[in-house]
């Protein structure tokens, strides 16, 4: 039998939906609509003259090889960060879920980095890995590694992935921990009695039962890397060396801010929006099938 609340009129459900709808409209649909509108315009930085130019901004964008390079960089960066942050935080959550002394303190410390602003996180890593003054780069030098993120694009990318991953681990950790705690102990005990070893228990029972959490985090993490990492990139590498860490969102930010070209920047954010919506749709259509709730 279906449980259902029946309202006598439309007024109450409408009133209940209204706050959420208002927030969505004001903070999502209006700015997104404005970005679409702006992407068809040509405007100077001060906004003293505005002109409708149709698809000119998009044409310019797709005529630039740098834009396609940024797409490639985004692909590498987002898959690296999503994979690293999900796997490391899952590992940490499994560890913290055990009955150990001081588990509370570990949990608090692991959640802490989430409160750090992206730019601050970036600067923190930048200092540690600064080629001539950084502590970590000093250690690397004694190992014979010529650490130089200013010119070596692999080093710059590694540094960024570390900073962005570190920033996201706390969030993932929190959800994984909650997910782990909701798995009934009886299932795991039963498997133990049947003779399953810890690794087997994890992959056959825990991991499949965590799949809704993992799927949710995958979507959230991809969105995070696509949208929220420009602060870290700006602080750590500035998109360099030679554009090797310029992702799509950093390009949106950079072309709009230092280029003062809002039309072109808006066109990029519209494309980015379409990409992320598409990506999320694909995730829901194909990956969600493998999720068991």
């Amino acid at each position, binding site marked *: 039998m279906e449980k259902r609340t029946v309202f006598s009129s439309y007024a109450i459900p409408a009133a209940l939906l209204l706050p959420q709808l208002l927030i969505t409209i004001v903070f999502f649909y209006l700015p997104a609509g404005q970005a679409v509108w702006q992407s068809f315009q040509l405007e*100077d*930085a001060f906004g003293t003259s505005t002109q409708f130019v149709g698809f000119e901004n998009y044409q310019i964008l797709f005529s630039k090889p740098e834009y396609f390079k940024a797409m490639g960089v985004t692909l590498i960066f987002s898959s690296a960060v999503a994979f690293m942050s999900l796997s490391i935080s899952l590992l940490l959550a499994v560890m913290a879920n055990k009955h150990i002394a001081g588990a509370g303190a570990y949990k608090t410390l692991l959640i802490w980095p989430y409160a750090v602003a992206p730019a601050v996180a970036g600067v923190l890593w930048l200092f540690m890995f600064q080629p001539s003054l950084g502590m970590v780069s000093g250690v690397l030098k004694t190992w014979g590694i010529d650490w130089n993120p200013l*010119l070596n694009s692999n080093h710059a990318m590694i540094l960024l992935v570390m900073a962005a991953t570190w920033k996201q681990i706390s969030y993932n950790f929190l959800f994984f921990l909650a997910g782990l705690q909701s798995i009934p102990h009886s299932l795991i005990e039963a498997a133990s009695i049947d003779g399953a070893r810890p690794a087997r228990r994890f992959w056959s029972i825990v991991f499949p039962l965590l799949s809704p959490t993992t799927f949710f985090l995958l979507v959230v993490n991809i969105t995070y890397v696509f949208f929220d990492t420009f602060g870290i990139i700006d602080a750590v590498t500035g998109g360099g060396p030679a554009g090797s860490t310029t992702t799509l969102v950093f390009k949106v930010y950079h072309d709009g*801010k230092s280029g*003062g070209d809002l039309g072109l920047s808006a066109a990029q954010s519209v494309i980015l929006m379409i990409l992320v919506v598409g990506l999320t749709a694909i995730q829901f259509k194909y990956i969600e099938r493998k999720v068991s709730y």
Partner: protein
Amino acid sequence: MSIFSKTALMAATALTLAASPALAQVEIQWWHAMTGANNDVVNKLAADFNASQKEYKVVATYKGSYADTMNAGIAAFRAGNAPHIMQVFEVGTASMMAAGKAIKPVHELMKEAGEKFDPAAYLPSVAGYYSTVKGEMLSFPFNSSSTVMWYNKDAFKKAGLNPDAPPKTWPEVFDHAKKLQGAGYASCGFSTAWITWVNIEQFSVWHNIPIGTKANGIDGFDTEFKINSPVHVKHWANLAELQKTKTFDYSGRTNTGEGRFTSGECPIFLTSSAFLGNVKANAKFDWANAPMPYYPDVAGAPQNSTLGGASLWVMGGKAANDYKGVAKFFTFLSDTDRQAKLHTDSGYLPITTAAYNKVKASGYYKDNPYNETPLKELTNKPPTENSRGLRFGNLVQIRDIWAEEIEEILTGKKTPQAGADAMVSRGNAVLRQFERTVSR
């Protein structure tokens, strides 16, 4: 709160308001990007001006880096609450000049306010940078600097080099740097901050070769870059070759690498003359500075250098009385004694000829020769078409593009010629984009 005390409070408030001269004062908002010792200088200037008269009150607000300050000002203008005065770095000059009614040209401001104003009183290389082709000053020069070569005298002694005879030419710098590497400075023989400002903009001007057509963009927005000349390409080829052995070692796009000089890692370092305060405070060795090096086989080199630093732009759309206050403040800033003191305190250049002569006459430069190096560079020869200054729209963005290509050259991913050609073609694309937005 009882009724009695409420009334008393209201009465007291009314009284203070009536009695306070602040009521009649006009506030002048001044947004700036000065940190550390120079922030104190700015605050003191505002305080001194406020104490000198009763009608106006200058409120100085720190708004972050140069780029941040400019962006904040632009955003504020779009929102309809721009500051009166905005400090904009030299790179943003072309963008500000193209801003139309968003700005109030300084020559107009001074004329309308009836303030005495003689553009000829300002150092030509300084005033020229911020004036139209007709010589009308658009923004008020505030803090100006130039590129100089800082060097570590102790390191020179260690390497058996004469600390009082700094290298004059690029080949000499390369040679010195190699010797310094042998004397314990293996990780960095020499380096530069602001890779594009030093090695493209100043480099071109100092060698009297064009950065772009139309007198480096001063004569029109339809300018094109010329920075793939044989001299430019040769310089990149040299730096790329030296990068392999770290005789030259790249220090990034901005000045975050300056610490490599004060920490003693890089014994030769080219950057702004305004690095002075930092060097004084942090270098634990004997140091000096010298003019930028040049290639001796380039005819006419060295020419003169060009400016770095920032100027004050007056934003448009304010009340006439507000502008009067701004004009009075600019007159206050131009005062010879004040300029002379600003120069010796901050390490920035004096902006008026009178202030320069006054400091010179006082014998200050005999004990502080490093304060005069940038001035000697700026006034080395009468400016030419190629050395008057430069004015390219969206230069902030173009500098990033150039730096990308430089990074490709230094890592050997592109040949110096291919990199320089790309700097020109990609830079031109941004110039056309800028032209597209301003000319409609």
